């Protein structure tokens, strides 16, 4: 089995920000956008998760396309070109 590419570790970032970050973000002030700081922190982590997963997904698609010599047409089913 090949080693997974390094960029995949990006996916761990939001998890770390929640699991390690929350004890440090556990404050009410200062409020941001009307939200207590802790809630604001968590909302940011959730949004970041989505962004990071989109990025990892795009890189994975690119990676799979590069790995297969017969590149599938761009935009078409970029599943993983391995079937």
């Amino acid at each position, binding site marked *: *089995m*090949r080693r997974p590419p390094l960029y*995949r570790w990006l*996916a*761990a970032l*939001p*998890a770390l920000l*929640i*699991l390690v970050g*929350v*004890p440090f973000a*556990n*404050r*009410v002030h200062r*409020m941001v*956008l*009307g*939200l*207590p700081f*802790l*809630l604001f922190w*968590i*909302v940011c*982590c*959730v*949004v970041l*998760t*989505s962004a*990071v*997963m*989109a990025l*990892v*997904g795009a890189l*994975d698609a690119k990676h799979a396309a590069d790995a297969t010599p017969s590149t599938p047409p761009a935009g078409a*089913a*970029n*599943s*993983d070109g*391995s*079937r």
Partner: protein
Amino acid sequence: MNPALLVIAAFLVLSFALGLLARRGRTMTLEQWSVGGRGFGAVFVFLLMAGEIYTTFTFLGGSGWAYGRGAPAFYILSYGALAFSFSYFLLPVIWRYGTKHHLHSQADFFVSKYKSPALGVIVSLVGVAALIPYLVLQLKGLGIIVSETSNGSLSVATAVWISVAALVGYVVISGVHGSAWTAVVKDVMILTVAVGLGVYLPLHYYGGYGAMFEAIERAKPGFLSLPAKGMSPSWFVSTVLLSAVGFYMWPHAFGSVYTARSEEVFRKNAVVMPLYQLVLLFVFFVGFAAILQMPGLTGAQADLSLLRISKLAFPPLVVGLIGAAGLLTALVPGSMILLTASTILAKNVVRPLAPATSERAVGRLARGLVPAVALVAVFFTLRGGEAIVPLLLLGYNLVTQLFPALILSLPERPLATRTGAIAGILAGEATIAWVSLSGTTLAKLYPRWPSAITDLNVGIVAMTVNVVVLLAVSATTRGRAEAGSGAQPATATR
């Protein structure tokens, strides 16, 4: 009958109609009925999964916990995001393996991986045991909605009986197709209602979010951050971690993985679902808005906060629409849960024990078990006084114990043996059962340990016991060439 109840009844009829329409022209084999023939695209799988995620738990439980507990409720918003990023890597593996081997259920996966029908039965029983509190909380929610909108003219018990009749009827009529179609209606409604209430109530009563939270902080200092003891940051972090890991261990969530047409579905979901989670934020706002407007709901009564403040703020017709959204958020997941539990019992418990049973007989049995499972849930609903969120936490503790055996079965050379997996799961579940029945906590057992440790979710302790037993037993049994060997590598396509 008051207008609010009429609106709710109308939506109930609509969901039945959708269930019937979805069924038309299809012969319902067990596969059709339970995994929809494996032909669902991104949108449907998304809705099915969302259908399971946005349940009464989020709607009434989420607002109830924001109202009653404050900041600890934020854990509900956190674990989903973790689970989705994790699912990006996990679900395609499960899907590929399941599709290749024509698997229908979570138990099938374990049976196939570990070559152990006994493990399949154990996994199934764990799944059903965990689904019961999940079903109980949906019924509790339905009961609350019906009795609150009737202004007390229907007692909670009557409301629960009406709800369970609706639920059973719905499942028997429609199976999984009905769930998917009603999920569309439900998601539109719940989005509208949650966002609508979450925007309107804070603005109407406080003039804005900042003003609302400042007012709460003045009235209840510290309510909007995690306390130093009890539901402290270490409770929060351990609960988020356990729930994220347990997210796809639910038999219905695991089963819905197989309904996907391709694995691309999961990659899309990992991006969209976290954003969809943000609906929860508005649900919290509703609970927070109710704190100062509707004070005095204590304990499990906090789950009433959303409906109580809605009745305060809106005319009966609007309350009816809110109640109808609530009805659907209980009906869709409730039907999935009921369907899953009875299918599992018939197919993964009874059939392995009585292998002569024909496919048709299993299908009939699954349908026949629907009312039986529902009655068990009614029994617990009418008996217990638990709030909605603790019920789900119990279910999570039970299913999470399946996680180590699942993960360790994925490598080409599985790290766990059949005996190890069984021993680990049983040890973990026994710990959960002991802790839940005796009401023990780490803080009670070891009062002098620092609270950073004693506040940990007790599921972590059970998980540790589970993993230690699993690895120890696997190490001693490995030499006997009994492991679900690497004959079928899990990740065939890479």
